[in-house]
């Protein structure tokens, strides 16, 4: 039976973290040198953690399947990063950031974690500025802020539309500094394929060198996963092509509980799918909804060109349904409404799966130049992809999978249910509940890496003397063999279907039944179709090449194999959660006005799943969520 003690410190909310830092045992500087820590993933969370831990004196072995830490998916974040600095003096505070985040997550996150996140948010900005990150500034030379969805204050720091890039390059610079100092050994193009657990503790990993195919075991005193989210399970998402769930999933199979897998965020403003061949979806920043108006034709089957449809035949449905928030309702609401109008047959474009985002009004009001200054690069990107000029015809947008709130369960110390295995960034489940607010993921990744793990991992290591385990231990040889066998098994399938096609089919099942809105019947269908597809995968997939060479198809296949298993758990989780909350919308549980209806009495917990065997239902463990500092209310944006 798994234990779900979140180890939340006692005391008042605002003092928990300070008190906890004091209570944690310390590792003395001379001893730090003896410890080795493995960090898998060098995106925002992993790079910041590896750099900081190396600074403290630990030896770090860092791994990424990318050729360089700078290529991690964090680089793509556009909008910004939140912090409770209150520089604009508009009433922000740590408590307000905490409150907005808890509420935005529809009360499905742990209070103590979220409060700590808000508390360290300010240090992140200080740290980043000291590293030379060129945030946007005002003419007086001070930092500029912008506002973002779900908040009534301006607390978002940004660097044009490339905030993630600048933050990642900052963390990367801290990391290369430690690589130069010899404290971090970075392994590029190395895929982690298994976790090694010895005597109940995480003690190492098995990797495959993607260039040579070599399988290697690595031993350490603790293992950190910062391997990102799993939105690519949908095939089409805004995530980078290689983003995957393998590290988390293999750790899950070794005993780490997976929490809330069904909480997946669908972002409302993405460029719609244009053809069968589409390989990924591109996000158009949420900020566009500040000035664009969303509409569809009033009548189904209206095929006139958008500019030929007169005002009276248009339905500005967000403005109509939500008069006070209008086009600025939160992501989950905007996404669901877009789907609803398309399901009514009022969608636009060749596929009928899109709505208009129209800038005609603002162009008329403020002039084209104004729009160009503010959104020029996004408009260019849109034109590049679609071949249409958004200054002249309205943009077409549609929701797309974007972020995963679910992930490996961690306690207050960010440790999973396997002692010695820590999980940071999007890979864990900790801070966003059932829905993430914009500009909060970057904040969480860096908070975990720079300011939380450096303290909490010390507390773990201090209780456990360093020993001289090496990779000749039988658990390592067994794990290694397991990895080799699974690769051989994949290569032996010899079917005729490209892995990508199978992945696309999996994505379609998830999108249809475990996507923006879900119902019992659909989920039950998914629970039948997913295992069937998985079986087909193991019969029909075709993977050319060998395992001892550079083989991108093999990499892909091994990731898709894990998605095939994870998908089933997502459906299981979504089926069991008989309420609607945040991004998880169950059609059976809605108000008369079609809004999400939470059931706090029965579902105010995180659902943590224990792996049993492929194809068998997983075992549910609950961590009840206790709210002492906020009042649970129903979100309303009318």
């Amino acid at each position: 039976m798994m234990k779900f003690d979140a180890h939340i410190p006692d005391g008042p909310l605002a003092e928990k973290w300070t008190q906890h830092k004091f209570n944690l045992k310390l590792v003395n500087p001379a001893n730090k040198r003896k410890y080795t820590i493995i960090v898998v993933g060098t995106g925002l969370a992993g790079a910041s953690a590896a750099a900081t831990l190396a600074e403290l004196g630990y030896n770090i072995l860092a791994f990424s399947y990318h050729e360089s830490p700078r290529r991690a998916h964090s680089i793509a974040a556009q909008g910004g990063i939140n912090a409770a600095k209150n520089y604009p003096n508009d009433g922000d505070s740590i408590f307000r950031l905490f409150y907005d985040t808890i509420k935005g997550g529809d009360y499905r996150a742990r209070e103590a974690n979220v409060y700590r996140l808000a508390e360290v948010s300010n240090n992140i900005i200080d740290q980043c500025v000291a590293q030379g990150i060129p945030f946007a500034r005002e003419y007086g030379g001070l930092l500029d802020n912008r506002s973002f969805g779900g908040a009534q204050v301006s607390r978002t720091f940004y660097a044009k539309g490339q905030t993630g890039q600048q933050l990642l390059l900052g963390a990367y610079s801290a990391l290369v500094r430690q690589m130069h100092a010899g404290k971090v050994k970075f392994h590029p193009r190395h895929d982690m394929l298994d976790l090694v657990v010895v005597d109940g503790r995480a003690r190492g990993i098995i990797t495959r060198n993607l260039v040579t195919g070599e399988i290697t075991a690595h031993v350490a005193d603790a293992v950190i996963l910062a391997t990102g989210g799993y939105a690519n399970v949908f095939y089409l998402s805004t995530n980078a092509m290689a983003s995957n769930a393998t590290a988390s999933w293999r750790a899950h199979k070794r005993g780490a509980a997976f929490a809330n897998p069904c909480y997946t965020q669908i972002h409302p403003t993405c460029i719609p799918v244009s053809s069968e061949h589409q390989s990924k979806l591109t996000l158009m920043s949420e900020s566009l909804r500040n000035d664009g108006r969303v509409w569809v034709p009033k009548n189904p089957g209206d095929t006139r060109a958008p500019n030929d449809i007169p005002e009276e035949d248009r339905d500005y449905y967000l403005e109509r349904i939500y008069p006070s928030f209008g086009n600025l309702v939160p992501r989950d609401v905007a996404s669901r409404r877009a789907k609803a109008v398309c399901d009514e047959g009022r969608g636009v474009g060749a596929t009928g799966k899109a709505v208009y985002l129209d800038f005609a009004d603002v162009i008329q009001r403020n002039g084209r130049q104004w729009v160009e200054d503010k959104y020029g690069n996004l408009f260019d990107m849109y034109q590049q992809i679609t071949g249409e000029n958004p200054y002249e015809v309205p943009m077409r947008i549609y929701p797309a999978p974007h972020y995963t709130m679910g992930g490996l369960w961690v306690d207050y110390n960010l440790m999973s249910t396997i002692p010695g295995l820590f999980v940071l960034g999007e890979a864990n489940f900790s801070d966003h509940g059932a829905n993430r607010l914009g500009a909060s993921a970057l904040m969480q990744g860096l908070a975990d890496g720079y300011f939380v793990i450096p303290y909490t991992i010390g507390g773990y290591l201090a209780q456990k003397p360093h020993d001289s385990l090496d990779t000749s231990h039988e658990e390592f040889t067994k794990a290694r063999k397991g990895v080799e066998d699974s690769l051989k098994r994949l290569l032996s399938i010899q079917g005729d279907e490209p892995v990508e096609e199978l992945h696309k089919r999996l994505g379609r099942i998830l999108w249809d039944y475990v996507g923006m809105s879900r119902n019992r019947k659909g989920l039950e269908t998914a629970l039948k179709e997913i295992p069937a597809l998985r079986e087909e995968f193991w019969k029909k997939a075709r993977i050319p090449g060998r395992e001892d060479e550079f083989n991108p198809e093999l990499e892909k296949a091994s990731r898709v194999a894990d998605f095939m298993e994870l998908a089933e758990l997502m459906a299981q989780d979504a089926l069991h959660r008989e309420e609607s909350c945040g991004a998880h919308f169950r059609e059976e549980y809605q108000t008369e006005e079609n809004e999400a209806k939470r059931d706090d009495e029965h579902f105010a917990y995180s659902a943590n799943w224990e792996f049993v065997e492929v194809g068998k239902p997983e075992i549910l463990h609950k961590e009840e969520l206790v709210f002492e500092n906020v009042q649970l209310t129903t979100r309303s944006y009318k």
Partner: protein
Amino acid sequence: MKVTLKVWRQKNGSTPGQFVSYEVDQVSEDMSFFEMLDMLNNSLVRKGEEPISFDHDCREGICGTCGLMINGRAHGPLKGVTTCQLHMRSFSDGDTIVVEPWRARAFPVIRDLIVDRTAFDRIMEAGGYISVRTGGAPDANAIPISKKAADAAFDSAACIGCGACVATCKNSSAMLFTAAKVSQFAVLPQGQVERKERVLNMVAQMDAEGFGACTNTGACEAECPKEISLVNIARLNREFLRASLAG
């Protein structure tokens, strides 16, 4: 539409490569260049042949992973875009498209169209950072920085490390890449303390990696998907001269 691809195929770094031609039919204008390659690859897989390896990840022009020489142009014929942002509407029916990997001594081929750009990371290691310890930073607004300096730093920091500058340069020089990082920190107050060592060490590493010397042809600027300007190279030269002469 239908296009003919002439693609460089090479099994690994130690075997010689050669061009192989492929006909790709039913290409739509809306496809990205990579989606066209995906389609070709899937058909190769179906036939039991090895698909063409090429580097890519974000497919939206920010991660810097992609990079192909397409008809003799780094990242293809358009200005200011990466290969992944290139769409088939930039080509016409019946075109023959020559696809090659980046070529430079410091970028050895790993397979087909994929090269090893870790030399860039080693240049960064040599000094592409400001030495601050986590946690010890003063308040972010403690030092005001003029908007002009912040914007200039941003323009330099926008480099995605794709290597197109090296690929297109007849000298395979990494000056634009290196200069962008040196510049970012040279214009910011935070970068002043290590300013001298930074430029000397980064240039030394750049040379040690086997990149060529810049001769100001400007090809890098013309092909850079992020339109990083030659101003950065001018600044690097100045910084280098200053650092070398000052004691």
